[in-house]
């Protein structure tokens, strides 16, 4: 089988125009090795002699020589196909190997002291979808959760004693960008004592500059009373100051854009509250109780097909 691709040479010498070039060693067909059932055909461990008389020796075909010829040196004489991973029959070999390697790592470093809960570094692990992309296997959420639990336990090892191999093992499961390292900028008062605060509500945006003063309010260059004709809107624009009794302590200069009057007024609430927090951080519980700190995430609900607006049904007609 090995020499099947070699040209068969006759007894007569080659004509001078034929130059026989030795071919580069090719890979034989693995099916020839009987690799499907490796131990049945791939290996002959012992043979029995069935011939009883010595006369058959003359009839039988000449003995096969298993010695390697010179042009066959680069070719493997035996090959069999085996799974690339011992988890082949689980159907999810990469995932299973990951799980087992993490389990083994944890077993090895189980006795290392753990960091107290507050001092554990916060890490964002890959989401299920990202992990599925990584291994290319249909991993279930509950199975991936096992990996996450192992990673969290490994992450609880005290940072001063965390072994290097654990760090390396955890690295592929971390998200590329750690959202926990993203901290909001701290605003401070500028040299004039102004503090900027930005608030949003519906589709309005308000930028508010708050400075210590005697209660003047200018929104888009106009006084509050001409900006918001409704009393309720005027009240909610400076609700953060009113709820904490600071109306006559600060001056407000604000720019609002987008949306309607309600949205603009309540965007101002948030902006003023944020700026006020920079001046007086201890007011935070009071402002939270007054409902000035939370951003209201509600937006206009989309219109749906078959409806007149978001939810309004067309009038019922008999036919």
């Amino acid at each position, binding site marked *: 089988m090995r020499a099947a691709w070699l040209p068969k040479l006759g007894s007569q010498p080659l004509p001078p125009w034929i130059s026989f070039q030795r071919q580069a060693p090719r890979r034989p067909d693995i099916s020839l090795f009987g690799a*499907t059932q490796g131990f*049945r055909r791939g*290996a002959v461990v012992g043979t029995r002699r069935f011939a009883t008389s010595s006369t058959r020796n003359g009839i039988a075909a000449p003995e096969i020589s298993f010695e390697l010829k010179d042009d066959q040196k680069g070719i493997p004489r035996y090959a069999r196909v*085996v*799974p690339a991973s011992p988890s082949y*029959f689980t159907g999810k070999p990469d995932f299973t190997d990951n799980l087992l390697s993490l389990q083994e790592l944890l077993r090895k470093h189980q006795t290392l002291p753990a960091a107290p809960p507050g001092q554990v570094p916060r890490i964002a692990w890959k989401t299920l979808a990202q992990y599925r992309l990584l291994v290319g296997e249909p991993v279930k959420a509950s199975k991936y959760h096992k990996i996450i639990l192992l990673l969290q336990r490994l992450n609880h090892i005290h940072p001063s004693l965390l072994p290097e191999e654990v760090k390396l093992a955890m690295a592929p499961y971390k998200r590329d960008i750690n959202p926990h390292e993203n901290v909001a900028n701290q605003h401070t008062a500028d040299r004039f004592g102004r503090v900027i605060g930005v608030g949003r509500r519906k589709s309005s945006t308000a930028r508010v500059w708050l400075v210590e003063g005697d209660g003047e309010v200018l929104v888009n260059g106009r006084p509050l009373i001409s900006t918001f004709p409704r009393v309720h809107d005027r009240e909610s624009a400076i609700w953060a100051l009113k709820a904490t009794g600071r109306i006559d302590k600060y001056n407000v200069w604000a720019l609002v854009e987008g949306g309607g009057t309600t949205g603009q007024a309540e965007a101002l609430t948030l902006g003023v509250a944020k700026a006020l927090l920079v001046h007086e951080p201890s007011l935070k519980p009071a402002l939270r109780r007054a409902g000035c700190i939370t951003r209201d995430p509600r937006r206009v609900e989309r219109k749906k097909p078959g409806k007149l607006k978001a939810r309004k049904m067309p009038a019922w007609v008999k036919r």
Partner: protein
Amino acid sequence: MILRQLVIRQGQRALIFPASQRWIRSLNTEIGKTDVTQKNKTHEVDLDCIGSQTDASATPIEKTEEPSVASAYKTWLNQRSTLGPHYEPHALVNRPPSPKDVTLELLMASQAHLGHATSLWKPQNQRYIFGIHQGIHIISLDITAAHLRRAAKVVEGVCERGGLVLFVGTREGQDRCVVNAAKLAGGCHLFERWIPGSITNGQQILGKCKMKVVDDLDNELEGYEEQLIDRPTLKPDLVICMNPLENYVLLHECGLNGIPTIGVIDTDADPTWVTYPIPANDDSLRCVNLIAGVLGKAGEEGQRRRRAMVLARGYTNQPSDEKTGDTSHRSAIAS
């Protein structure tokens, strides 16, 4: 009277224990004080801390230096006591006995003899049952040992001929012994659900799992990637099942494909489901650990003999040299 008792009890307590840090801090008016003490916890050496140790009135407890976690752990590693002989639950998994070390005492110690309640039995198991004790069947351990050794021979023979052995244990807690046994025997493991059709419909289920081509010494051979693409998926050459009751589908598929199976057969399981039954208690983790470990060890021996044969003869696929009387491979195996 009650008040007097309270003062006596609590007064003694108060005298014994020094004033706790918590309520001293509530009396303290300085805000920055606590920050300083917090800093001392993390940094070992703080000059302020040492300097202010003279006035013991303020914070007597936190002023003493605490060792860092790393140094404390190092001290613990050096000072911890060494244990005498004791029971190690995972010894059977990590250091399993070889088939020749299996004794009836070991089998009994690992609860291999305990069967199920007599009403749950399968009459096919009659020949494996020693008797009845307190309403449960007792498995005859000499038969267990004999069947275990026979199964070990089968595993060894399959591994010696380069076969693919699959260890299956899908019950809770069987994963570790199954994985370890597969590692020893150079085979595969399965500790979660068998996906039905992995053998009979392999291309659909295992089609994406990677394969590789190895030579007779298990070194990977390059250059076969193209041939591996449209190759049928692999089938195991021997399946060892620790809990046949839950894996009927697997055993049935093996039967359809002529794959021999070894199974731990409790008194409520059907021994005809597997080719080579091992009558033993499949509900005891210790027993399952023992059986998986012994079979894994047998597989390891088989692999070792196969490699030794390759090294002695050149490669495995060669007839023996009986004609020339060369028995060097025999001596290599025997050594």
